[in-house]
Every structure is written in C-alpha cells, then in structure tokens.
C-alpha cells in the first residue's frame, strides 16, 4: 500500500489523514446514509470498503500506521448482525489483543478506533469520525516512523518509506 505523501505542516492548517476500513454490509452503507441524510462530518477519512470487519487483518492496521496515516478506523456490523454470522465476533477478538499491544508499544489508542455502525446509523458514523478526528488532531501528525521528526516536518513533504 502506497500512501501519497501530502504536504504536512505542523501549523494550524494541518489536517489529519485517516484510513477507514468499513464493512460492506453495515458501516459502508452507514457512511453512505450519513451523506445522503446530509449530516456533515470531517472530510479527513479515506474509506476502504472491505467485505467484513473479519477481513481486516491486523497487518492492515499496522501497515496503515507504518505508511504514515494519522489514524485508523475499523468499523463493522453490531455483534449478532454479521452477514457472515460470526465475522465480527472473530474480528473483535483480534482487535482486542491488537489494541492492547499497540498501546503497550506506545501507539496512542486515540489513533486506532474500532466501532460498530449499522447501515441505519448515519448519525453514529458522523459522531465516530468526528471524535476520532478530534482525538487525532489533539495528538498531532503521526511521526512515529520518521527518522528525524522535527527536522523533516519542517522540510515538508517526504516519502513514507524513509
């Protein structure tokens, strides 16, 4: 996964970039509903549609952070509503372990958010995204993998491969 380097400044006009993995059956439709109901929410999320929250390999989340995205959202169907019966139950176990591990190695839990959003919860999707964006904004840009954070941010765009 290549993420295009965008101009990032640590000034006021810095906007976080957030990757959202949305379940095709619930949250993706929920996000669609947010738009069609004309509920406004921060435009910082890039949405990636997945067949099920169970499809989200923990590796995807690690790679997203590694690639320099400032936040990650994983959203799927409410427990009991999975289109594939148990995909979200299995996902929930993986995310429970992963979120604790990420916290342990020093990645702020505010950067990685999990949520259940059904296809009828357009307002909840807007709320989840707004809260995530606010949390990430408070944390600042994801500079965890930059070799020399302060210096390179001042220089502006740079490759996430560094």
């Amino acid at each position, binding site marked *: 996964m290549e993420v295009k380097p965008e101009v990032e400044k640590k000034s006021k006009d810095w906007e976080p970039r957030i990757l959202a993995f949305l379940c095709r059956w619930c949250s993706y439709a929920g996000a669609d509903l947010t738009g069609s109901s004309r509920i406004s929410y921060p435009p910082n999320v890039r949405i990636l549609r997945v067949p099920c929250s169970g499809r989200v390999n*923990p*590796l995807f989340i*690690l*790679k997203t952070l*590694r690639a320099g995205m400032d936040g990650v959202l994983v959203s799927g169907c409410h*427990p*009991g509503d999975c289109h594939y019966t*148990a995909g979200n*139950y*299995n996902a*929930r*176990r*993986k*995310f*429970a*372990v*992963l*979120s*604790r*591990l*990420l*916290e*342990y*190695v*020093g*990645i*702020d*839990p505010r950067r990685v*958010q*999990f*949520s*259940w959003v059904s296809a009828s919860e357009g307002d909840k999707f807007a709320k*989840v995204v707004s*809260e995530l964006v606010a949390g990430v904004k408070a944390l600042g840009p994801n500079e*965890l*993998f930059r*070799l020399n954070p302060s210096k390179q941010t001042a220089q502006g765009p740079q490759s996430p*491969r*560094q």
Partner: protein
Amino acid sequence: MPEKIEEELLAIVSRLFDEGRIHHFLGYGKGTVKFKTTPLIARNREDLRGLWVEGFCATNLTLYLKEIKGQVGLLVKGCDSRSLVSLIKEGQVRREDLYVVGLPCPGQIDPVKVAEAAGCENEELEEITLRGSEVAVRVAGQEKILPKTLALLDKCLNCQYPKPLIFDCLLPGEYVAPVPEATPTEDVLRKKPVPEKWAFWAEQFKRCLRCYACRNVCPACFCPRCIVEENMPQWVSPLPTMGDNFVFHLMRLMHVTGTCTSCGECQRVCPMGIPLMKLNEKMTDDIGELFDFVGGVDPDKPFPFRTYRQEDPDKFIK
C-alpha cells in the same frame, strides 16, 4: 548427577531403536561453542554416542519436529512440553508419532547474565556449574559463587511447569521449579505513559537486524512460507528500518497469539538482545485476561482466535 540420567536415557533410547518404535531421536549433543549444546538428531544407536545432558539444554527441541518425518523420540523439559501440546493441537505433529522423554530441569544457565553478574566479558568465563541453589563460575582461575537468580534465564525464575505436561517416560530426577520462592517480575514499562513506551520500543525496533532468528527458532512459527518473504504483494519490506521492524514484530506476535507458550527462545537467540519476551508476556497476559487462555496447557481448549463467545469483552469498541 548426570551419569545416572545419561545411562538411563541411553538405555531407554537404545531400547526404542531396537524395538523399532522410533526412527529418529532428538536430543542434545555437545556443542563446539562453550556453554552451548547443539541439537542432536540420532538416526540409529551409533549416533547416540554424542548424546549429552549435562546442562545447557536451553534449546526447545520441539522446533525440529516439523522437519523430521516418521516416529520420533525426543527430550523435553517442562516448558518445552507446552510447545508440544500446542503443536499437537494445531495438527502440526501427531501424538502417536512421538515418544516423549521428560528431562528434569534444574534451570537453564544464561551465560550473558552470568558474565554480567560476574563482572567480566562473555569470553572470559571458563566454567559454569550448577550446585544446588547456587551457581559456581570460574573466571581467570578464580571461583565465584552466584545465586541462581543472577545466573538462570529469566523464564526459569518464573517456572510454572517444571514437570512435562505430556510424556511417555520421565528420566529420574527432581521435577521442581529451580527457584521456588520467586515471584513473577513486574514489567514496569506497562505503567509508563504512552510516549515513554514508544521511546523504549522505537529504540528496540531500530536495533533489529531482521535476521529472523526469532522467527526461525520459534516452534509456533511453522508457516511453510512466512509473510515477510511474500513478494506478490510484498506485505512487509525486508529492509531493517524501524518502521518495517515494528510491523514485522507486531505481526509475528499476532500470528503466534495463542500458540506462543512463552518458551523464551526468540529472546534467547536474538543477536541484538531485544527484549522480545516483554511483548510476548504482554500478549499472553492479555489473552489470559480477555479469553481465559493459557498457551500450551489445555489440549482441548481451542485457540483464542479460532473461537469466540458472544460475551467477549468489547469495551474498547465504540
């Protein structure tokens, strides 16, 4: 102590070979490097001459099971037997193909720790011997006595399974924890604020060479092709940059969740001395707390990621 064990072991293994019960025997052979043994794969009675059980048996021999076909006999310590339980549950080996010989373990010596405690370089150590509750070290002709806590591998200090969980026969000896009064060491890092945790781990991940020794030595890492070697698509860059090392280590941790039995081999073989067991212990504590699962103990309990309960904890999900 070893003479009796050695005779007993030779008698057992020779009998197994004679009866045709096993095709191979996995044991420890005398190594070419001081304070290290080498895994010995014996194909017949003659090969058994190299067999060695005089300490320094830290290697978890269950690792080699995946490479040997047919009936195999092997030596296991209490901790190794947990890997065995895990591998049988995973369907990697069959119980009926194994003949498990339990080895009484007085605790395994960590030469790095000994050198540190004795205040000398690793190469200067001349002899290390276990004597009851103490460890005698000879440096430059002088003998020093160290307590076991300063000389054994960290995992041995918190040994909970000194007796193998599965075995066909046990060698004579005492199956007790090496340090009975020891309490589990607390990981102070867990209580620190998040940025300090990152400062610590970023430094560790920076040092990783990506030699993959941790993966190669891990009995729970048995994928025929590891995801780090996949190149269509390339999931993880092979470059040892801090960021890719972070992805590699956390991903490996997620892959061994449940199958990891805290045998500590990854940390023991790491040439850079990265404290990988801190990560593993955090993970094993978490799955114990979240799913009431302990790796390699209960042969009937399914792995945590192979099952679910409706009432699983989900407070972290919005």
